[in-house]
């Protein structure tokens, strides 16, 4: 683990400066087989981060720029008449790639959003009665603008739930900003990035995540968190069972990245803002303050 992930993380940190924690969370999300949502104002490096990750993981990737007039067919593909063979042939859309960068997903209409999100959930696409499986692994990294910006269709809670994590990037600090201003153009560096993880290694990592030990004591803590989110009136709705599972998987992946074979409360607390923030309060982007009452009140030991 150390050997496989450390160079990857280091390389990513060279591109996105001063965002060590967010990068770790993003990588954690991918080895936990989850889809990732990056939310922030334009220009802080959302797209750069997703490009970087796709490059480093060595996956076929395709970027889909969501606009207000994008149609489901633009994402999934459509049947086109083949004049030579006198039949309809399905043209695979950009979704048939191992990694999709769904840029500014909340600028499109709900119809187009749901085409993508259905594919994410079912890992297959059905067009005109014909089912086409999506490649494996299949990741979606979606970026979105804060919903208070003009021309956005905020994702409903039911669809936000499909993203394992939501992270925010935020402005870089002064030092990182200086380095960014002095350095090379980012897209050029990305193009030169080597692949850091083979598909086999990724597969191994994903397998290892499922084997991380979870003690009954930790499950108690996890369930206390879930119960608290449901009983406290800080939140309109508590964590769903899917949310609870997501928290467990993400905690395991985090433990693995921390080179441990058992989950400890630190792991849960580390991933909690990213996993629970968008599930508990869709409108707010400040995940840390959303989960603060949980971290403060639910007893660890």
């Amino acid at each position, binding site marked *: 683990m150390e050997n496989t992930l450390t160079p990857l993380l280091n390389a990513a940190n060279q591109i996105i400066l001063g965002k060590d924690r967010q990068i770790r969370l993003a990588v954690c999300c991918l080895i936990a087989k989850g889809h990732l949502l990056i939310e922030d104002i334009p220009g802080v490096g959302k797209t750069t981060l997703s490009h970087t990750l796709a490059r480093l993981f060595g996956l076929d990737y395709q970027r889909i720029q969501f606009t207000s007039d994008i149609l489901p067919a633009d994402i999934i593909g459509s049947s086109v008449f083949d004049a030579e063979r006198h039949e309809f042939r399905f043209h695979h859309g950009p979704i048939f790639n191992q990694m999709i960068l769904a840029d500014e997903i909340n600028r499109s209409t709900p119809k187009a959003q749901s085409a993508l999100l259905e594919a994410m959930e079912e890992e297959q696409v059905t067009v005109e009665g014909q089912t086409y499986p999506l490649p494996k692994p299949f990741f979606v990294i979606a970026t979105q603008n804060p919903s208070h910006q003009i021309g956005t269709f905020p994702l409903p809670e039911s669809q936000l739930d499909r993203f394992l994590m939501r992270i925010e990037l935020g402005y870089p600090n002064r030092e990182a900003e200086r380095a960014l201003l002095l350095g090379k153009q980012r897209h050029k560096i990305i193009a030169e990035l080597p692949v850091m993880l083979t598909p086999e290694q990724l597969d191994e990592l994903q397998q290892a995540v499922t084997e991380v030990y979870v003690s009954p004591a930790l499950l108690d803590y996890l369930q206390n968190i879930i119960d608290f989110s449901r009983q406290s009136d800080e939140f309109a709705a508590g964590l769903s069972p899917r949310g609870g599972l997501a928290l467990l998987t993400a905690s395991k992946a985090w433990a693995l990245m921390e080179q441990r074979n058992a989950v*400890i409360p630190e792991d849960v607390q580390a991933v909690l803002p990213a996993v629970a923030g968008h599930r508990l309060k869709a409108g707010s982007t400040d995940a840390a303050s959303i989960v603060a009452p949980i971290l403060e009140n639910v007893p660890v030991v």
Partner: protein
Amino acid sequence: MNSWIPQKSLIFMLIALGLITLPHSQHLPLPLFLFFGLLWSWRFIAIWKPEWLPGKTTVFLLMLTAIGLLYSQHQGILGRAGGTSLFVIALGLKLLEIRGTRDIYLIVFLGFIVAATEFLYQQSIIMAVYIVLVCIVLLATLITINGLHAKIRPTLKKAGIIVLQAIPIAAIIFVLFPRIEAPRFKWLEAEKNQITGLSDTLEPGAISELGLSPELVFRVKFEGDIPPPAERYWRGPVFSYTDGKRWRESPNRFFKRYMDTPRFKGKAYHYTLLMEPQNKPWVFALEMPARFEAPLQRNGFYQLTTTKDPAQRAEYNITSYTQFNTGYLTKTELKDTLQLPGKPSERIVKLVKQLGGFDLKPEQFIANLFNYFRQEKFFYTLMPKKMEDNPIETFLFDRRYGFCSHYATAFVYLMRIADIPARVIGGYQGGEFNEAGNFLEVRQANAHAWTEVWLQGKGWTRFDPTTAIAPERVEQTLDIEQQIATRTLTIVPPEILHQSMDWLKRAKQILGSVDYSWQRWIINYNRASQQGIFKHLGIEDLKSIIYWLLVLVGTATLIMARFILKHKAQPVDPAVKLYHQFCQKIPDITRKPGETPYSFAARCRQAYPKHAETIDRITQLFVKIRYYPNSPKEMLEYLKKQVDHFSCT
């Protein structure tokens, strides 16, 4: 100590306190209640505008105002009203200085005391239910400060469960805890407040309107048959002496040494009489009471009185016969019941003569008089005009409108002119039957006056002149509420009443019945009834009472504990126990509930760099044992050793 108190706790608490003091508005002086309202609203607004809270000087001035108000309204803090006001005002003032959770506890407990003071004024079941509900809200305040629950409904539910869990033990203590006839603490003693009831004088001419009230006087539960309405005469004071206007009791009340013993005939009625608080020691028994228990006494007028404080609700078991013969007449009685205020006027003597008072037998004369009332234009009214001069003659010859006491006094006056011993009896007549609870309810509006004439061979015999004018008054059920509303006498035949008994009336009866049981079994549970239960259980001395109490409360607690712990109990991990020991050994640093072992260790390392190594070792051991698979037993022992030896000093 300035700890942060959740807004929700404050709202909960203020609402609960508002609800608790609300019923006090009925008896607290208005300025005091308004003052409390001001303090309460001030605090309520300050939840959102904390900068509006008063400073120390303002609080001091408010306190001075409060003391001034208290003294102007009560001249002190002793007595029931003064004491209650003191608590309410103190509660209001305390609201303005909430600095930490400690103050909240204090206020909540003060709130419980104020809730209890409500029972000094009112002990109805409705008030009891209300107070219990409000206490649940108050308990919820404590839960919001202490617990994880923040939502309203689970919090209230939890408070309700706590109250429910307390009920068995409360019931055991209620029944078994030795009842001490409390010495009357002056500061809680009730002032003699206005209890309405029959007066010990009767002055029909001076009343221009009969005071009617639906207020309950007593309730009667019969064992077996209930006497028919025409026989329901509840005997009260006996008026023998008159000055022509006013009628009073004869002073020879206890002159019964030479009296004949009454003989009872016919059907015996056994019943339980529950008297509401009264200001006179009179107990209204069915005519004629034959057997009764202490503290009841029968005076020379065959009236029952109690030696206990009549302001306390009390229950009596009495046996009465409606047929009786009181036997011979003593000289004192004769003198008392022939007394006249002076020489009667000529026209009245003429009337007596005309009706045969001087030559016919008394029975014949009485029959003639009844006929006279019936045939001449006499009317029954609840609103007669005042007759100040010579009321009896004015009534007999001029006005001829009157109610029961006009007829009774005129009747007795005429009897006495004819030299027949007669007297006026006050009391109640009738009573409404409560079908839900199977008992009679007698109210103030049932007040009545009738007469008694001594006849040779029959003894004292009841005559009710009102029956000559308005027989319905006696034979049928009064619709008391309508009577009070319209100030006219409306009499409803029982069968119509039965038909028109809609659900509202039915509900009223059920409520009345519940209240009756409540009064009988809960409020009226006193030392005597407790002694009865003790006798039943074979408890004789204080030692066995304590033994019973301990065993029962202990058993209830065990059952409850088992019930509660069954759901909550989790075997405590020995590692956790050791870790907590370790946490407590570190001075000045307390672990926050949401703090992970490693972040706690980081804080400790910073504070005690000398022990960094041990702190880390213990933390790591603990995490390994608690969260990692298959930790060997030796690890726990090692942890124990480490924690035992650990010391920061």
